């Protein structure tokens, strides 16, 4: 009797939890039809936010890959003084309140900031430009990629890199022909998470870049701006972001199962942080 009650209780709690998580998503689509969503694309505010988001996200992710991959490789393969500090630094933006990150960026790159006079001398103004949006997104989203990349590189079988070396391949060829292909699945997973996080960036962007339509107003900022003016537009943009998130997560799940198929022998490619 007691056992049955316990089982029922657990099931009931789980249902409440899942319902709670699903309800807002369902609510968004209850108000938006696909036709409605497409309709809103003609709305200049929505269209501009869309373009700004896409452009800044793509550039930010490219920067994250170009700078993050070598950094992750270094942190995964070398042990040096200050290694723990470096890893903490990489992870910091993950726990830092985004608004604080924005203030930090402003204090660093702003006109009166640490590097402000340097940029001034070069005739470059960063705050409240599209470059600022890109920087904010890159800052906040980078840990998701770099952490994943570190885990992937750490999981690379050292015997495989050793084998590559004894077969006459130098460190460069070894990296591109062995290390990178074996880590690829995990790197793509990390990039997907980083992309999703970057697309939803709000706090750091509004602090550091402001919310100027066509310049710095990304989708989340536009949702906030249009909130009390055009609720239909906010719903459409929200619906779009939900779709992107779902597609990314599903893609990850499918990629994960595919990577773990026995013929690939690479279940280790995904570090624990990729489980979501």
């Amino acid at each position, binding site marked *: 009797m007691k056992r049955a009650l316990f089982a029922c209780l657990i099931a009931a709690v789980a249902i409440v939890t899942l319902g709670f998580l699903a309800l807002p998503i369902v609510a968004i689509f209850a108000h938006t039809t696909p036709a409605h969503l497409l309709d809103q694309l003609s709305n200049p505010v929505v269209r501009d936010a869309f373009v700004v988001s896409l452009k800044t996200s793509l550039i930010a992710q490219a920067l994250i890959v170009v700078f993050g991959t070598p950094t992750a490789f270094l942190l995964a393969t070398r042990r040096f003084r200050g290694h723990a500090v470096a890893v903490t630094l990489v992870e910091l933006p993950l726990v830092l309140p985004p608004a604080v990150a924005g203030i930090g960026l402003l204090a660093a790159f702003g006109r009166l900031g640490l590097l402000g006079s340097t940029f001034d001398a070069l005739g470059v103004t960063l705050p409240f430009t599209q470059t600022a949006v890109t920087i904010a997104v890159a800052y906040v989203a980078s840990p998701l990629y770099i952490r994943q990349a570190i885990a992937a590189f750490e999981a690379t*079988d050292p015997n495989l890199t050793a*084998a590559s*070396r*004894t077969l006459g391949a130098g460190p460069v060829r070894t990296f591109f022909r062995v290390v990178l292909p074996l880590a690829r699945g995990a790197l793509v997973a990390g990039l997907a998470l980083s992309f999703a996080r970057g697309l939803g960036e709000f706090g750091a962007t509004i602090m550091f870049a402001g919310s100027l339509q066509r310049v710095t107003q990304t989708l989340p900022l536009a949702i906030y701006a249009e909130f009390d003016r055009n609720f239909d537009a906010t719903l459409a943009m929200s619906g779009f972001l939900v779709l992107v998130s779902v597609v990314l997560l599903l893609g990850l799940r499918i990629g994960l199962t595919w990577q773990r198929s026995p013929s690939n022998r690479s279940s280790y490619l995904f570090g624990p942080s990729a489980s979501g």
Partner: protein
Amino acid sequence: MAALALEQVVVPLRAFSLRLSLDVDGALALVGPSGAGKTTVLRAIAGLVRPASGRIVSGDDVWFDGAKGVSLAPDRRRVGLVFQDYALFPHLSVRENIEYARHRRADEYLDRFAIRHLERARPADLSGGERQRVALARALARDPDVLLLDEPLSALDAHTKAGVRSELHDLLRELAIPVLLVTHDFEDAAALAERVGVIVEGELRQLAAPGELVAGPSDPFVASFTGANLLNGYGERDGALTRVRLVDGTVVTTADEADGEVVLAVYPWDITISTAPPHDSAMNLINAPIRGIAEIGNRIRVTLGPVSAEITADSRQRLGLEVGQPAYASFKATGTRVVANHADPAREGALPSRAEDGVTSASRRR
């Protein structure tokens, strides 16, 4: 054949230091318990571990010279290393694995190792024996001056092992480069290599032909580690049995199948010593004067003709055995095992051995 030479190579390990001087030409096996530093030897030669001092020379090429600060990167040393788990690239096909070492001539190696039908397979889809052949093909496709094998048979199940061992034996004889292999199994070492070195806690205890190690172990550890007597001879089938004519003319009967040159193993504790011809089921009887009597821990090793037997001190006293006295050694045909076919006869007493005292792990037996 350009020899490989290790000159006073020292590699500090966690609990002890590896200290080794070694000349390798032909096939040489290092045997020892796990954690003896065997793999470290191979990694140091390949350039994956940097020794603290010493010299490693292959022919005229200096690969490592501690005094001069020379240490070539692994990819600059012409060395083929077959890893214990084979370390095949899981994301590449068999052909791509071999091409990784050599771009154009993969076909030659696919044919030579009879793996052409597997060229498109991924390593995960291969059996243990197939993986080993791919690993060997890949290592040799690099065209190395030295071949290193790390526990080449340990990843295989017992059933596959016998066949692979014989294949590997033939291959090592064909190669015109020095081969250094490490294993924890003396029987494997004896079957594959012309010379065997016993290594314990980073130090070479004894280096000799396999038969020589069994007949004259320099210390109790070597004795207990080597275990079996190894008898070289020429086998001929005789009904269900095989008659093996040994180098000294003695004919030994084994229940294993073999043809041509063979190496038989028989354990000293399977051999009975008596002063009169025994009347029992043993098919093999050797009558000769006792060549040597050695105490090994709590056992007595009596060498007589081509074999050594292990008996207790009590038995020795009861029989009153002394060196030079004629005696009989008997053992069953089922107590012998063929460990190698087509083997070269082991060289007699070629190398000096070094005795050492104070061995604590003497009582360990495989």
